[in-house]
């Protein structure tokens, strides 16, 4: 018999315990993810906490006064300019997410149910424009909608209008169209994923039980894909509310959004605390709106049954 087997039990125990600890799933897994986790803590969590802190401070010229105050929030919520910008941003992001989801659903449905062998090709085709520069896509809408742009010159060439229309560019509709286009792929993917999860035999079962195509869609497919619709709406709504490039390029005076005001506080106006308060307010309000959207979609889902 080897010495190892006859080792004192106490020694064997501690050794086994130390091994167990080193080899334990939790420790290894956590050690492995910690660099990435720490990176996210330093460049995401810490910055957001710093923004939160700033929103309760005030700035006098170049120095920050660290006394706690709610003044920034009073300004952010009551000053007409910021209140209007916030409302407009919310309105635009809500409209954009509504349209992207409505337009995306049939596509996601088509790919999932009728994509056949070409499913991944369709998905690839639809996501490819999304990978091109966001700035360039916004720029191309400026080229299309501009006074001397593609649409105006095209319509004039066809004899539909006599002189270029100024109504196309520099308003919130232009912002909505551009954003709807820019976020299309983002809405399709979550809906597609949830439709893929719908067990096809459930649809067959509904048909077997007497439902026509419309009813089986409304009573089975649509409710089961609701989680996808919800995440599609949120994934579009939250980022678009803070969009900076689109309003700046195609929004004009009527299409300015809250991000442009936030940027101004960190640029020309140099009022970081106010910028911070505007950021926090925007995030809070859009979170509330997102929550409400989830509740509304769930309520509709329940009614549809």
């Amino acid at each position, binding site marked *: 018999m080897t010495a190892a087997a006859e080792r004192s039990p106490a020694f064997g125990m501690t050794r086994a315990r130390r091994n167990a600890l080193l080899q334990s*799933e*939790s*420790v*290894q*897994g956590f050690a*492995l*993810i910690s*660099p*990435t*986790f720490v990176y*996210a*803590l*330093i*460049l*995401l969590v810490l*910055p*957001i906490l*710093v*923004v939160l802190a700033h929103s309760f401070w005030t700035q006098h010229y170049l120095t920050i006064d660290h006394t706690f105050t709610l003044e920034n929030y009073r300004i952010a919520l009551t000053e007409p300019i910021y209140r209007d910008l916030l409302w407009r941003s919310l309105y635009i992001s809500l409209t954009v997410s509504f349209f992207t989801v409505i*337009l995306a659903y*049939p*596509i996601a449905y*088509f*790919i999932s*149910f*009728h994509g056949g062998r070409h499913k991944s090709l*369709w998905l*690839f*085709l*639809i996501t490819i424009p999304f*990978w*091109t*520069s966001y*700035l*360039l*896509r916004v*720029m*191309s809408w400026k*080229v*299309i909608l*501009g006074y*001397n742009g*593609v649409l105006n*010159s*095209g319509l004039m*060439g066809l004899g539909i209008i006599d002189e270029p229309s100024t109504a196309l560019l520099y308003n919130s509709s232009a912002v909505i169209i551009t954003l709807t286009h820019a976020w*299309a792929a983002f809405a399709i993917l979550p809906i597609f994923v949830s439709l893929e999860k719908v067990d096809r035999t459930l649809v067959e079962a509904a048909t077997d039980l007497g439902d026509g*195509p419309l009813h089986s869609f409304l009573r089975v497919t649509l409710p089961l894909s609701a989680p996808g619709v919800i995440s599609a709406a949120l*994934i579009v709504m*939250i*980022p678009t*509310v*803070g*969009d*900076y490039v689109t309003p700046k390029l195609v929004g004009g005076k009527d299409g300015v959004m809250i*991000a442009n005001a936030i*940027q101004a506080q*960190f640029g020309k106006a140099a009022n970081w605390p106010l*910028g911070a308060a505007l*950021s926090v307010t925007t995030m809070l309000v859009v979170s509330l709106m997102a929550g409400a959207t989830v509740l509304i979609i769930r309520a509709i889902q329940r009614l549809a049954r």
Partner: protein
Amino acid sequence: MTAMRRFFAGGWLTAYAFLYIVFLYLPVIFLPIFSINTAPTPKFPLTGYTLKWYEDLPKTPALLDAAWNSLIVGVSASVLATLLGILAARSITRYRYPGRRTINGLIMAPLVLPEIILAISMLLVMLQLGLSLSLFTVVLGHVLICIPYSMTVLTAGFEGFDRSLEEASADLGESAFGTFRRVTLPMVAPAIISSLLVCFTISLDEFVIAFFLTGTETTLPIYIWGQLRFAAKLPGVLALGTLLLVASFVLMTVAEILRRRAARRTQNEGGLYA
């Protein structure tokens, strides 16, 4: 009802799908079209074919600087984000531990946060920490927003990976490092390259974060942004934009092919009658 039936049977849907593709691609197509048009303003009818806007590009030093900066930022950000992504994706797919979902959620959060919020909050911290704004700070920002994409690509690549392959390697006498080198790495290499390409593309095209976090250096999107103020510079911007579009398109196509190859490779394993 029959119309409805046909609608769901796919006829209308197919037509709609093609229209949708047109809607997605049409705006983007105008960039290359007008970049080879002789007229300096993008409007119909087209006036004639020229490559002069492209020929002017290499003659612009500011543009070349911006391109070089974009390359440096893109390579650094994609390598760093992919390294961090590999660690996190491996941890998420291989281990079970408390807080795993929360940590994953946190790492993925930049994907759904408004870029402006990310940009200004990082800006504040960097200024507080006394970091001077430079390409380095842009890289830091880009790594943060690239990690979620890297994670998505890599977890998909790692997930189908049969754990018994690594056990088989250990069973045959290979050390942990040897197993990683001889089994894990060759298996996931396509996913890693795919992640590098995706991150590079994102960094190359990203504007808002670069705009806020850079000092005096410009990247290509920042350069384009600056040129947009001048109507006369538009054709050059269109030409440059077209090149960027083509670059993104090629990179993403290669990434997609690699991603599929990776998926095929891992999914074949364990197939009973493959």
